[in-house]
């Protein structure tokens, strides 16, 4: 675990992004339920060591940009049964995101 580092980052709050629909082996911190879905950047959190590398005792550097991405619950689950205005916000690293 490292503290936030300032890094070059591609997205700004309000940008629409799609989470890669990828299922690589190993450890990653991108929940399955958001893969392939479109959300909006809520904020940039800073740069952090890549957990996919840290998990194997590698340094995970240089730090990768981390964002909080906001998804509509009804986009994540078409049968979501509570309020249509509800959202889920998820921390996602930049290499999992593409412009939507």
């Amino acid at each position, binding site marked *: 675990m490292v503290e936030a580092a300032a890094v070059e980052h591609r997205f700004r709050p309000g940008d629409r992004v799609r989470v890669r629909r990828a299922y690589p082996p190993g450890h990653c911190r991108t929940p399955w339920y958001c893969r392939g879905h479109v959300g909006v950047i809520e904020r940039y959190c800073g740069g952090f060591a890549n957990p996919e590398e840290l998990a194997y005792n590698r340094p995970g550097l240089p730090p990768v940009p981390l964002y909080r991405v906001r998804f509509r619950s009804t986009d994540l689950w078409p049968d979501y049964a509570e309020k249509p205005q509800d959202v889920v916000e998820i*921390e*996602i690293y930049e290499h999992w995101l593409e412009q939507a």
Partner: protein
Amino acid sequence: MSAETAGYYRRMQAAVEELLVLRGVVTREQIDAQIAAMESRNHERGGVLVARAWVDPAFKARLLADVRSAAAELGIDIGPIPIVAIENTRATHNVIVCTLCSCYPRMLLGVPPHWYKSREYRSRVVREPRAVLAEFGTTLPEGVDIRVHDSTADMRYMIVPLRPAGTEGMSEAQLAGLVTRDSLIGVGVASQP
């Protein structure tokens, strides 16, 4: 987890702990000191921050912008992991989960409750938050939206609950007592005086 697998992990933990001590990586005293430090922290530290935010709007703004420096003003060290404070409003209620494992602001609030780590809470609160909140005895007014924060990576979260009505005359210390652990996670709201 079955009793059999729980026993397996307990033995594995004991074996790893013994090896770390035998090989001089850490001492038994260091392990005990860390456990004691973790157990000495609890949600009361969150209550102190929230009560100050309720009485001092400028402090609330600083807390929402940067928990580390705001907490330091009150002599509270949140440790190395960034914490994001999220404010409940009359329009939006917030709740925290880690769907991947059990990430929790331990350095601020101490050990998480057992249910926070359960597969049931982690899988259901994103999918049917009101149903889960109802099981905690929490019913939101009609029209309030829910924002679920999935603590998947390097941030940890605390919720700043709404200040209850009828607390105008209360001292900051009394207000802090209304801030329950569940209200800091978002499955509850602050207690009524």
